[in-house]
């Protein structure tokens, strides 16, 4: 394997895990805030 294979693998790991963290945090925030808003309107 040449150097660029290792560089690409490292960047894919970093970007994928960071994106997963942000998407999970965003989805959980939207879900929780939507539930709180829905309850407030009742």
């Amino acid at each position, binding site marked *: 394997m040449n150097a660029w294979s290792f560089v690409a693998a490292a960047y894919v*790991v970093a970007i994928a895990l960071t994106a997963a963290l942000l998407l999970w945090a965003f989805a959980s925030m939207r879900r929780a805030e939507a539930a709180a808003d829905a*309850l407030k309107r009742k």
Partner: protein
Amino acid sequence: MHALANPARFLRIARPATTWLLLVGLALAIAGMAAGLTLTPPDYLQGDTVRILYIHVPSAWLGMAGWLGIAAASLSQLVWRHPLAAVGGRAVAPAGATFAAICLLTGSIWGRPTWGTWWQWDGRLTSMLVLFFLYLGYIALASAEKERGGEGRIAAIYGLVGAVNLPIIHYSVLWWRTLHQGESIGLTGSTIAGSILWPLPLTLVGFTCLFGAAVLMRMRAELAEAKVEARMRRLGA
């Protein structure tokens, strides 16, 4: 800090801050990674693998800074009983664990072409792995305490005790003869050439902003969940 003790006041600041941290973080992280991959020269010894530096160093910094945040939140909870401290500690933990994992994985990938091995039980690598397991323990403990309706005091004590590992990680390359290189970036300067180093501040600030955005989003989720639980209890009473 106590000015933010009121959740309503905290949310007034956190809502716009989340968007700004996300936008600035994405712009800086993408610019830094693109510059690191295309605009800098290869290292004379390591060649192109040196480009892993631009993601490995920010993730190492954030893995350690995350636990520093947990320790500060724990101290704030135990000493000043800050109402948002436990929420803050629980929000930091998944982000810190993620960046500690990124640090370990990118370090392992960098180690294979540089050292000829994916893993070595040396001081720096082992203490960083311990940090990752400490995060998993904190997440499990804090979740269990929250489910039982506790105040999170056991998790806070665990957060403070776990901070002992931070100086061990930092000084591991000085205390032990390790495969990992010694300190090359300090507060006063760096032994890395400026032509290679310059995109690093972009990814450092960029990933730090993304870390901050993830923490704020988790805090907002926890506060909204607490609001729903309190209202359900009132409706049930």
